[in-house]
């Protein structure tokens, strides 16, 4: 399965429709018995955040995500992987990114989705800046995000 996993990666400024993406992913999942989807949404934090700006490294971003998805397909028996990650300006409530995995068994689908999230967070070249009433600030990397890689 690993060798034939259908991997799709999209890096885009435009919003995406989680429901439509989930629905579109199912036929791509082939003979899979299990599909796991994850959606990250910009949190509003009680009026503290007016908008978020996500900078990325065009060229490296796509390569880094494809490498992470490829690694997931090597580690687990997967039929399909989808990763969408936005850049540019986002407001609270908007989708930031999503991953979806399809596998014959649910444990593989769940683990691969969590692996993708952990690696995308710390190894794909995106940087978040939060713009609020008190000014703008680059989001600091959390130690727990780096530590999360240790479990794989």
């Amino acid at each position, binding site marked *: 399965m690993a060798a034939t996993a259908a991997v799709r990666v999209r890096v885009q400024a435009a919003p995406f429709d989680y429901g439509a993406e989930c629905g579109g992913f199912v036929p791509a999942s082939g003979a899979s018995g299990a599909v796991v989807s994850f959606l990250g949404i910009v949190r509003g934090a009680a009026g503290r955040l007016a908008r978020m700006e996500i*900078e990325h*490294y065009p060229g*490296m971003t796509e390569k880094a995500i494809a490498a992470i998805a490829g690694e997931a397909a090597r580690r687990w028996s997967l039929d399909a992987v989808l990763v969408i990650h936005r850049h540019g300006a986002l407001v609270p409530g908007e989708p930031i990114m999503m991953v979806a995995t399809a596998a014959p068994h649910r444990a593989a689908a769940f683990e691969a989705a969590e692996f993708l999230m952990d690696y995308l*967070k710390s190894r794909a070249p*995106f*940087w*978040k800046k939060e713009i609020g009433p008190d000014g703008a600030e680059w*989001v600091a990397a959390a130690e727990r995000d*780096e530590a999360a890689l240790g479990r794989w």
Partner: protein
Amino acid sequence: MIEVLYFAWVRERIGLPRESIETGAATVADLVAELRGREARYAAAFADTAALRVALDQELADFSAPLAGVREVAFFPPMTGG
């Protein structure tokens, strides 16, 4: 000539997103030392390399990595995607 790219607050401190640099630096660390010596804004951006990451030709690398054959070097803070 080597292309040097800056992202996030590294870009903001240095004041530009990329530049072409003529350098004889053998390693990333040598290049950082050279840039630090240029101007205060570079010294500020590279004050603490423990807070920085580097990519060579779009692959993550160490500061001890050699620059021979490298066309593109990028400096940025730890990633915060996802």
